[in-house]
Structures are given as structure tokens and as C-alpha cells.
């Protein structure tokens, strides 16, 4: 049995769909952020798999994934700072009950 590209793409696809589902159904902001990380991670896997299987002599996919990881870290840190700030002002982080811009 040979492990071809599609064997890596299918788990990444299912991971992405889980992220979409979670992002729509979750109400807690941190849980939404976790779903977002799942989606980003699935896309990273796709970059690496296409780089490895189709263009093994180049490193574009690998470096794109490196930068994507760095940007995801920055984005998560900032989002969590905002979430904690919202929690301090509104005492909860449920997106359905946050309907004011100013407290």
C-alpha cells in the first residue's frame, strides 16, 4: 500500500469542516477561536502536503506554513487580549449577548 497525497488531504479536509461547524455553532468566543485554529491548521497541512508531493525540490509551502504559524500566534494573542478585556467589561464572553459596542 502506498500513502499518496490524498491520504493526507482527507484528514485535513475533515479537520477544516469541523472548524467550520464549530465556528458557526459555538457561542463562547474562546471556543470560536479554537475552531478558527483548527481551520488554520488544516490549511497548513494542505500547504505542506502539496509542497512535498508535487514540488519536492522547492520549499515555498514549508515557508508559507512557517509564516502562517507565526501570524496565527500573533492573531491568537491579540484576540485573547481583546476577549479578556470584553470579559472585564461585560462579565461574559457569549457572542449572542454582546450587542453593544460601548459599555
Amino acid at each position, binding site marked *: 500500500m*502506498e500513502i499518496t497525497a490524498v491520504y493526507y488531504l482527507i484528514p485535513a*479536509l*475533515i479537520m477544516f*469542516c469541523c472548524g467550520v461547524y464549530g465556528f458557526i*455553532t459555538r457561542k463562547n468566543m474562546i471556543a470560536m477561536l*479554537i475552531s478558527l485554529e483548527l481551520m488554520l491548521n488544516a490549511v497548513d497541512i494542505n500547504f505542506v502536503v502539496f509542497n*512535498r508531493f508535487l514540488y519536492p525540490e522547492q520549499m515555498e509551502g514549508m515557508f508559507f506554513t512557517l509564516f502562517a504559524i507565526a*501570524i*496565527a500566534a500573533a492573531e491568537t494573542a491579540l484576540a485573547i487580549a481583546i476577549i479578556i478585556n470584553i470579559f472585564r467589561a461585560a462579565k461574559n464572553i457569549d457572542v449572542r449577548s454582546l450587542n453593544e459596542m460601548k459599555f
Partner: protein
Amino acid sequence: MESVGSIILYFIVALSMIVFSVMAVTTRKILRAATYLLFTLFGTAVVYFMLDYEFLGAVQIAVYAGGIVVLFVFAILLTSRPGDNTERLTSKSRMLGGVAAVITLIVACYSLVSRCALAFAQKPEMETPDMQQIGATLMGTGAGQYLLPFEAVSVLLLACIIGGVVVARKR
């Protein structure tokens, strides 16, 4: 032809990635969702190791599993009591999410099937990129080298630090 061990490892990793990512979006305890996310990220790191990108796997473990998940756990403990359940989903929102996920699945499967030849590409031989090569590519200014994005990311991280302090400080 792959060895039997690597095939078994592949199935363990793929299965655990799928199961843990499903559990991360369906569990009702938010701290458990973060833990399942951690397992999924570890599975991804193993995939990178299996594809011979060892540096990338190490970065994945250090930044994602070591940094981001810890940040998540701190934020969860600051904003909710441990043991809290999120409220049960209404069937409407569950259906909406399921429909969106299935549409994504269908579109992606269609594009995968329509490029069947690429999807079944064999794994070509490749030398693992060594550190010298990676460093030269990150620091070079020629074609296919990444000095400008590297510096842009450093500015982004600085802006992120300042932004984090400004947003989260006590007034």
C-alpha cells in the same frame, strides 16, 4: 512502497486527528476543547515529521502546542469557572453549522476529484531541508528567498506585543 510501521503510524495519526478535531468542536466543556485541540496539533506535528519537514514539526510543537494552547488555557481559566458546561445547542444552529460544513465538504471533494491525478501523486524522493538551507532561504534576498516577509513578521510581532499590552491593561 512504505514500510508496515509507517503505514500503521499513519493510520493512528490520521484517525486521532479526525476524532480529536470532531471532539474539540462538539464537547461541552471548554477546557476539554482546548485539550483536544492540543492533541490535534500534536497529530499535525507528527504529519510534518512523516513528510520529512523536521524543522516545521519542531516549530509546530514549540509555537502551537507550547505557546498557543497555554494561552488558551489561561484565557479559559480567567474567563470561566472550570466544570462549567456550555448551554445545549439549539437544533437550528446545529443544522446551520452542519449545512455549512457539508457544503464545504462537497466543494472541496469536488475539487479533489476533478484533479484526481494530482491527488494520487506518489511521494517523490526528497532530502530533508537542513538548517543551513532553511536559514539561507529565510535570510536571502534572491528569488524564492524570504528576507522581506521575515522582517514583516518581526514588525507584526512587535505591533502585536504593543497591541496586547494596550488592549489588556487596566484603566
